[in-house]
């Protein structure tokens, strides 16, 4: 009878009926208690953390997005109007697919969408050839015609051998100036300067690294004065001084020794003496040709640098000098090397 009464009572009332100590220990969830009472006689004691329900973050669906802009662009649109000035890369406006960046493991190269690499670097989408042409056409009215008589590079070099270049800078900051604006570069080809052999050699020794042998160009850079005008004057002065000093021969230049020579000279060298000895010992009467050829080969070996070809020529020349050439024995001269890739 008593038990039946318990069934009927409300959960809250049941809780109140339970002694205080039991109330704190037992589960307070009403449903769990109903279940326990319905199914088992004993309440279950749960030890340990309850499994929390995982709360999934509320997904905010964005408002329906418009398709990217390039889908509405025609293929024959005027690109100069779309991208009129230098601008950070914008993937929706640029109509072609482009990928940039180091791919993550197993992934393709990152595409253009939200690509920081593409956005960081400068792009020249504002300078496509038609746009450049248009800008040139617009600038033409401010230009004067190209001077007659200066059509080719050769003519330009003949009349204007010296090239002076400087950069100007404009900042949009509290200071509009830039200290790099004082740098002046002067370039001139040595063939435009009227130098003899000694003058050229002396000039090359004076300028050192400022001469580029591949382009035959002397570059003087001046940045020691605060104003570019002063640096330009200094460059002019420097070129004048270099030229005049190279044309002079100082008395101490006659003390030039063998080690100071800029290139190998065979005449008077121990090599010539040795070759002469060989020729004398062999008793060859007219050995002029032989010695001349030998001298040329040794000079080439030293001046042009030593490589397999020059060493081979030297070998042939010495063989002739020592009289060891044999028409059949050309194996050393044209020894065929192994052909790469063939089965051995």
């Amino acid at each position, binding site marked *: 009878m008593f038990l039946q009464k318990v069934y009927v009572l409300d959960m809250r009332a049941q809780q109140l009926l339970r002694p205080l100590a039991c109330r704190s220990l037992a589960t307070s969830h009403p449903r769990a208690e109903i279940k326990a009472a319905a199914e088992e006689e004993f309440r279950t004691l749960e030890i340990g953390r309850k499994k929390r329900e995982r709360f999934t973050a509320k997904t905010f669906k964005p408002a329906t997005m418009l398709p990217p802009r390039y889908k509405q662009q025609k293929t024959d649109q005027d690109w100069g109007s779309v991208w009129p000035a230098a601008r950070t890369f914008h993937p929706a406006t640029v109509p072609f697919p482009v990928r940039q960046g180091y791919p993550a493991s197993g992934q393709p190269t990152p595409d253009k969408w939200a690509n920081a690499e593409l956005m960081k670097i400068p792009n020249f989408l504002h300078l496509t050839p038609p746009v450049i042409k248009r800008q040139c056409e617009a600038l033409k009215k401010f230009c004067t015609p190209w001077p007659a008589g200066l059509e080719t590079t050769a003519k330009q070099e003949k009349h204007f051998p010296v090239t002076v270049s400087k950069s100007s800078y404009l900042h949009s900051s509290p200071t509009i100036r830039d200290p790099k604006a004082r740098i002046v570069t002067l370039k001139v080809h040595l063939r435009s300067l009227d130098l003899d052999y000694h003058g050229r050699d002396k000039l090359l020794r004076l300028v050192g690294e400022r001469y580029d042998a591949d382009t035959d160009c002397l570059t003087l850079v001046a940045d020691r004065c605060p104003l570019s005008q002063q640096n330009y004057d200094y460059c002019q002065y420097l070129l004048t001084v270099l030229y005049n000093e190279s044309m002079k021969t100082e008395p101490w230049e006659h003390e030039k020794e063998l080690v100071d020579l800029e290139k190998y000279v065979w005449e008077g*060298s*121990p*090599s010539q003496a*040795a*070759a002469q*000895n*060989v020729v004398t*010992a*062999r008793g060859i009467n007219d050995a002029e040709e032989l010695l001349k050829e*030998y001298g040329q080969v*040794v000079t080439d*070996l*030293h001046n042009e640098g*030593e*490589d*397999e070809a020059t*060493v*081979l020529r*030297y*070998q042939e020349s*010495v*063989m002739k*000098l*020592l*009289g*060891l050439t*044999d028409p059949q*024995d050309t*194996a*050393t001269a044209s*020894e*065929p*090397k*192994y*052909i790469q890739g*063939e*089965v*051995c």
Partner: protein
Amino acid sequence: MMAPSARRAVLLLRGLAGRHGGCGAALGQRCVSAEAAQAPLPRPLAPRTSLTSPVEHTAEQRGLWYTLQPGVVQRLFSQGGVPKQFLTQCQTFAETCLMVRQPSLTLMDFIRRSDLSLPPNKFLLYGRNGCGKTLSLVHATHFLADTDWLLVHVPWAPKWRRNFKEVAPSATIEGQYDHPLDAVLWLQHFKTQNAELLKTLQLVTQERYIWSRREVTEPDTPLGELVELGIGRARYSTDCVLALTSELKRHATEGRCKVAVVVDGINTFYSPVSRYRCEDRTLLDPKYFTLFQSFMQLFKSDWKNGIVVGSIDSLANEGWRRDSHLPRYLLRQQGWEALDPFIPIPIEDYDDLEMRSAIDYYLDRHWLQNPQAGSDIGRRELAALSAHNPYLLMQVCRPL
């Protein structure tokens, strides 16, 4: 003579035999690929030649292996001259075999055709590391020994500059330095190499050498006794070497003998630095070594009946002067002026014929255990791994 199959393989590669004349290599490929799928490859015999003396070697023997008799190796190379790793390999194979290659044949041809009445011709071998300069010199030394040349052989010259046993200031010549123990070893080497010739030639000293108050070598003493004196008295050994070389030079000029100077690492003579520290803590220039001077006098062109054969090795130079393998760079200006004019003989890597021959030799000696080593693919792999370099091939084949 070598087995017919091996000879045919060699001739096929040269394009001299074969059904269609020139495409011998292609023929070989077809044959091998047909068999490879079926059975393990037959072990090829090493292409050998039975001519044990280099005097008889001609272009016909190119690519073939000839055996050096143990007596020859003992007599000529007991103190070096053959690379150590190669020597170990020969001990493993229980034979000392050398491949006949073109540079050696050219060198021997030059030596045969040299006019001995003129100042000595100089032939210097050069090439990249591991191409076979030292072994070509070994071949040439054997040839010189068999053709009754008196050998003045320096097995590895940098040893006296870098790894000398002892250097002491010279007692006789002011400002110069001796190698007491190294000179003794070299005199023993000279004696072993030229024992027979010294007996037959019966050369005698022509000058009087005063070693100390009691020890004097009178003129007309056999050179053998001079050598024995140097071996016995380390104190005078370097001066003995100098005396010996001077005497030999004089005898050669007067036509009593022909002297061959063979130096491995000749560019080390013109190096500016050695390992010996003087009293003022500077490193000594090797030009003050009496031992070096004894041999450098033989490189001059003021004697006859002689020949100078050497190798220009980048390993003979100091570590910072090894960028190129070419002679002018390694010899430096001083060496060039001393040795010019000389004939530089290039030593290249293996070509196809030599590569095949080398792998056949390793297979014959059961050195290559991998069953695929002799196959087409295997050979190609070995060639690729070793880049056709003989030394690298030896290294690559070691664990196989």
